[in-house]
């Protein structure tokens, strides 16, 4: 745990934290809102007291109630990983500013997060799907995208995934999986859910 880094971070961005700074093992974690991403990341990258020059990872997270974008940074000035969480993005329209102006290489990381979660990175010049085909409409890593025919936990009913929009009439007879239920903690529990064969698709 790097207590000096904690002090420096609190001095620089203390008023912008949306949750208190946390430190555990070798990671320091700060929480900010989507609006502060540009400023905070620019300061972390350019300011010589931070000098976070390596963007170690960028990824999206769907908690079931909201979306996050999580950045991991590395600096020669600190023994800790710095995790910056841009939390509280609404699930129906998650938007966050792009960091490609600092790290050009974040472009593909952001494309992946867009492809998998539908998070829109404003300012990314090339925000299109990267893994899934161009005419694909769902976002596979979202928590309401279930895998009913996953070999690990069901005998397999032979359909690939659950569409977000109701299927057209000729596909109406397919079984539909219930949407994931929200656990009291605000997180989706997908444990033990199997396709409900009796339920018909909603009109």
């Amino acid at each position, binding site marked *: 745990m790097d207590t000096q880094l904690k002090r420096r971070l609190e001095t620089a961005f203390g008023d912008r934290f949306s949750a208190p700074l946390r430190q555990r093992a070798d990671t320091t974690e700060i929480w900010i809102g989507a609006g502060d991403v540009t400023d905070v990341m620019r300061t972390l990258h350019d300011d010589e007291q931070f000098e976070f020059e390596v*963007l170690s*990872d960028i*990824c999206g997270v769907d908690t079931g109630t909201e979306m996050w974008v999580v950045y991991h940074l590395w600096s020669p000035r600190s023994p800790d990983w710095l995790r910056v969480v841009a939390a509280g993005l609404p699930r129906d329209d998650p938007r966050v500013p792009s960091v490609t102006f600092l790290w050009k290489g974040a472009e593909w990381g952001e494309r992946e997060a867009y492809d998998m979660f539908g998070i829109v990175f404003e300012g990314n010049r090339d925000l299109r799907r990267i893994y899934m*085909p161009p005419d694909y409409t769902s976002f596979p890593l979202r928590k309401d995208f279930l895998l009913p025919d996953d070999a690990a936990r069901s005998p397999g009913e032979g359909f690939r995934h659950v569409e977000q929009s109701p299927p057209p009439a000729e596909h109406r007879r397919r079984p539909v999986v219930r949407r994931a239920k929200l656990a009291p903690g605000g997180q989706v529990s997908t444990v033990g859910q199997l396709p409900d064969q009796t339920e018909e698709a909603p009109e």
Partner: protein
Amino acid sequence: MTDRSAVRSLDDPNVFVEMPATIYDAVPPYPPRTEREAEFYHLRDGEMLINLGPQHPSTHGVLRVVLKIDGEQVVDLDPVLGYLHRGVEKICENGDWHHAISNCDPLEYVASMFSEAMPVMAAEKLLDLRVPRRAEYIRVLCWELNRIASHGLFIGWLALDLGGLTPLLYGFIERDTIIEMLAALTGQRMLFNYLRIGGVNRDLNHDFLSRLADWMSRAAVEIEQEARLLNENEIFLRRTKGLGVLDRDTALRLCMTGPPLRASGVPYDVRRAHPYSVYNELEFDIPTREEGDSYARYMVHLDEIRESIRIIDQVLHEMPDGPIMAKIPRLIRIPPGRAYIALESPRGQYSCYAMSDGSDQPFRLRIHDPSYFNLQAVGALMPGNLIADTMAVMASLDPIMGGIDK
């Protein structure tokens, strides 16, 4: 209403398209989706598009690259990924933590000892688990052996893409010796499935150790022989020196890691930058080069093989006795939390961001693959080079499609 004459998309039955997208057309059958795509597919005088892959041997897997060329010169290029996409992250979320090990195995199919370590180390960090020292030493031993096997193959591939077949055969001899050795230890030649949460699967056995001792007695000499084959080869030098040059700042901004970054003069190696396992007890250097071209990347790989042999030597001398597994139950429920781990694979930094909600399955297992971010650099390296050098520069970045497409 949708047009009935349109074709139903193969990927999504709700979507109708004018013409299904095929892999054969360089120009996509739909209007540009982004600014960059519009710019790329707009041709000026004398420019044309050609399609490389997805099954071209020099793309090291199923990578498709659309090249925009002017004569023999590459003006721009657009890599198209996803032909090998399996959704490993989603599959991991739907299996339990032990399944994640074998699911992550085929990501880096040339050095899978590294990719299978990700979920293991993430789970250990979430559990605050202390792995027995002997298990840590065995892990380091396997990692470094696998690194040598992978780097040997890299040198062969690079030479193959430049038109030389012999180094590939030498690379495979080296790799086969190591792979057979690891097979004696783990029971598998390629996808080892050897690491476990809390330790490793089996202890060192006689077969493995005798093969290892046999190989160690001649490894250093063989590496130098292999190096002599290429180091001063006129054709090799001409086709790698000064090609695909990346400076320090660009490499950092492109989020590159591993040998391509160190060849640009940044001594960033996770084993030293953020030590994990027992690497802080071992003595080794981080080889770097300043030139940042294909030749520098090749030389960094070669130096890393030498360093790995040094590490293996120390590990064998200091191998402690003791258990190889921590005492944990077979069925584990990992406490809620978030953990980030990183490790240095032959291609760069593999890292994993894991979230647990207290069940026996990962809530989110983000896998950061180094080849994915390194491959991105071809867009910055290619413009101005000849088509024939595209393969050489791409090979010097050492992409593995299993990890890129996840």
